[in-house]
């Protein structure tokens, strides 16, 4: 790899990292594993002045129990997340979706928070964060702590609500309780390829009726989006095959899917409908 020249900073603690960030300036990038940043550097699509490498900030790797939620540290690797007993028990959607990210080598370097802060709408985890109503935990040296709900976090293509001097330190995931079902349906051409479309869904049923439903769509716009029309159609109603099928037809409403080598916008819209039906079916099968 022959990237452009950059300054390299490697803080040993969160405090040191937070102090370094404002000095590093607007053209600094945080390196949280490198799953996406390294290819951008290699292809010279990114020219950061400075890289702040979080690799040595051990505290950011922790995954801990926080009462009715889990807190996943921003630099917990995908490998760590998908094998973590707490995640597997209380956030099975995260474990399942993470297992589809890239390949084993990348999953040992790439991180949970890195993937969310990168905010690629084709990434799997942003849609999962939406479906789970996750809360992003941000911290800066000047402004202290801030909590940003997932639905407010992804503001534009590869752009988040984080300020330049702010670090994503972790993500709070509500624990799955009784009645909840989850599924991530990823459609891609090869195991290591990006999702052409992905559908993350979380459904809670009470006595057969849909009490809560949240659906996050991967790669159906410049940001990860919720399939709101489907959610509204299903909410409060009894779940039947027919209702599910009918609601899924609304999956592409209010989306603006991209067109590229792997799929036209029209095909993506079609996939969103088929995959939403399948994801909801799988999430409610048990």
């Amino acid at each position, binding site marked *: 790899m022959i990237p452009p*020249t950059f300054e390299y900073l490697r803080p040993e603690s969160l405090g040191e990292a937070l102090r370094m960030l404002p000095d590093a300036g607007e053209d600094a990038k945080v390196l949280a594993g490198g799953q996406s940043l390294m290819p951008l550097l290699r*292809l010279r699509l990114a020219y950061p002045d400075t890289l702040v490498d979080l690799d040595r900030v051990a505290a950011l790797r922790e995954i801990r129990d926080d009462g009715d939620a889990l807190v996943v540290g921003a630099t917990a690797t995908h490998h760590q997340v998908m094998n973590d007993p707490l995640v597997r028990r209380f956030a099975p959607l995260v474990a399942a979706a993470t297992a589809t990210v890239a*390949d084993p080598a990348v999953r040992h370097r790439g991180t949970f928070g890195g993937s969310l802060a990168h905010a690629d709408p084709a990434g799997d985890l942003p849609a999962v964060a939406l479906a789970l109503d996750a809360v992003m935990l941000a911290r800066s040296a000047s402004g202290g702590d801030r909590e940003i709900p997932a639905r407010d976090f992804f503001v534009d293509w590869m752009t988040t609500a984080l300020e330049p001097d702010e670090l994503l330190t972790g993500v709070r995931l509500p624990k799955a309780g009784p009645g909840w079902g989850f599924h991530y349906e990823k459609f891609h051409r090869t195991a290591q390829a990006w999702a052409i479309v992905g559908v993350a869904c979380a459904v809670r049923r009470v006595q057969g009726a849909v009490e809560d439903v949240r659906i996050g769509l991967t790669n159906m716009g410049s940001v990860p989006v919720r399939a709101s029309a489907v959610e509204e159609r299903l909410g409060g109603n009894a779940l039947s095959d027919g209702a599910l099928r009918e609601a899924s037809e609304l999956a592409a409403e209010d989306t603006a899917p991209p067109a590229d080598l792997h799929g036209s916008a029209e095909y993506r819209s079609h996939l969103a409908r088929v995959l939403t039906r399948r994801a909801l079916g799988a999430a409610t099968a048990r």
Partner: protein
Amino acid sequence: MTEIGRARLRSEDARLVTGRTRWTDNLTPAGTLHVAYLRSPHAHARIDRVDVEAAKGRPNVVAVLSGADLAAEQGALPCAWQVTEDMRLPAHPPMAVDEVRYAGEPVACVVARDRYSAVDALEDIDVDYTPLPVVVDMERAVQDGADLVHGDMGTNESYTWVFEQGDMDAAMRDAPVLLERRFVQQRLIPTAMEPRAVLCEPDGEDFTLHSATQIPHILRLMLSVVTEIPEHRIRVVAPDVGGGFGSKLQVYGEEVLALLLARRLGRPVKWTESRSEGNMAVHHGRDQIQRVALAADRDGRVRGLKVELLADMGAYLMLVTPGVPLLGAFMFPGIYKMDAYSFSCTGVFTNKTPTDAYRGAGRPEATFAIERLMDDLAAELGVDPIEVRRRNWITHEEFPYDSIAGLTYDTGNYEAATDKALALFGYDELRAEQDERRERRDPVQLGIGVSTYTEMCGLAPSRVLGSLAYGAGGWEHASVRVLPSGKVEVVTGSSAHGQGHETAWAQIASDRLGVPFEDVKVLHGDTAVAPKGMDTYGSRSLAVGGVALFRACDKVVEKARTIAAHLLEASEDDLEFGGGRFSVKGVEEAGLTIQEVTQAAFAAHNLPDGVEPSLDSDVTHDPENFSFPHGTHLCAVEVDTETGFTKIREYVAVDDVGTVVNPMIVEGQVHGGLAQGIAQALYEEAVYDADGNLTTTTMADYLLPSAADLPTFTTDRTETPAAGNPLGVKGVGEAGTIASTPAVVNAIVDALRPFGVRDVPMPCTPERVWTALREGGAR
């Protein structure tokens, strides 16, 4: 246990898979300078000005040169295959001077003390271009008034090559069945695991050039021709090379320029490409538009086959560019008998990366067309696709058989391979499941595809190459040296780039000489060590180079026999040789091992009159015929009609590659070949936009399958020895690639025929399958 036929683990693998070896990029002599190339962002443009001054001022930069700076010495890259007398062959400078004709063509280079400085300095080179009209589409390129790739040529056509046999008019006239199809062989990027790399070290008037090449011998000669540096002043080394698939059967501009830069600067220079650079600048493969017509009787008997090709040459003709589609000319009839066959191919220039040999080289394209047609013929007649093939193929009693394309197929048994494949596949059960899924309108439909292929390997009889106006012969060389201690060195002119020669050649020598496998060392890939050779491509190594070694071993044994007879005071005719020992017939205790004979030959104290000291031999083997592997591949796919996704459910490959030296190596070749052939069917495509920009420059866009995407292959063999060589071997490097592409596409089309689908263009992406279903249903 005999060594030939033994499934040995490959002795070279430990160093290859750990990378602790001589990959070219691992070699960095003291004082090495690093080269980086600035490449054209335009598919077609005039170069008005190249300003290198700012780049020269960058830290650690030693030299910055444009094509104009090298114009006087860089010559033109060679094309060794003048396929017709009037073939148009444009000059191809290693570095563009006044015009660029494909995106990725080198226009300038930086030489610096380290690679980072070299790449950084590229950004300071300023080039003024005037864009010129871009030619992307072959069918438009051959129309009157088309924009031109080479303005001074007046046309985009390089050549038209024609072959005709039999009475085509009679075959086509009133044919009860006439199938006319247009198939597109999409452009592929070979994607060897090791990118290209070259290192050139000057030493006075001499140069040693290491390159990740398949062809050290041909490269040495061609470098000499292009640069006018005398051949004996150039040594070419192909150290360990990590794959090629034909892409390193080439004389690349970067190789020529390494030599010129080393001469100019007097220091070692090295260049290693990045993957994205390689996707643009390594020659591509395939890229044909095939118009085919097959005439048949109502009973399914094929009467005639007409083939018209447009073959995309890209912007220039490289080493064997124009000949690649013509290798297919001999294979379109496949394993079938017919009354008439005609073939014509027009080579077309476009503003794209040049094409050249890629695994199979002409034969996969041909096999695809005929095997797709045979499945379509079966569907047209309502006959099972296996049955329609049975009615047309050459039966095993008919060998040797003169094919309508002018080849003599020496041996084969298509019936045996097919019967074995059908049994392994569970053909009848899968057909029953297919019916059942159709019956209940399962969203996931099952399809079964057949491919009964043959191919030509063992390139090649030199006289045949001569008749095709190819620039060289097709022989191969081997030397065997029995060292004084009884150990053996084998030198082969065929150098491996992943094939496992070091294991297979040692097995042959061990078997023939009766020495332990571990006592044999195989040397290759260095023109100073293995001075004679025609290198590695076209599944030729074993069938030509292996046979050369086989004969060289026997020559050593014959010399040893003469010496042993003398020492044992026996007649040569009375000596038996087995297990590495000569013994006198009937007198078991009277004998000498080959090691003992070697010591005597080395000491030379007591040799028969006229026998020279030492035990060694040289053989240059020129084959009398090609070899013709064949086989039957069966593929079952599950096609999700809602999403268009294709999953391969079962894949059975029964191949007949003749005698097998190492079954494990053969199986590995088949697996890799299948992966690449399946990849053409489902995944890979080099895509250019309307401006001639390659949009698949990374592996995120140019999709390669991994093990996770492929089924567990069921492989087996029949063994019909080749008649044309004493080992009975045929070649296996390309068989899997040639056979599998049509098997997969046939299976997809078979799944979708009830929906009105007759074809899906490659690669059969989910969206293309979905589109075909919508269009089929609308009909």
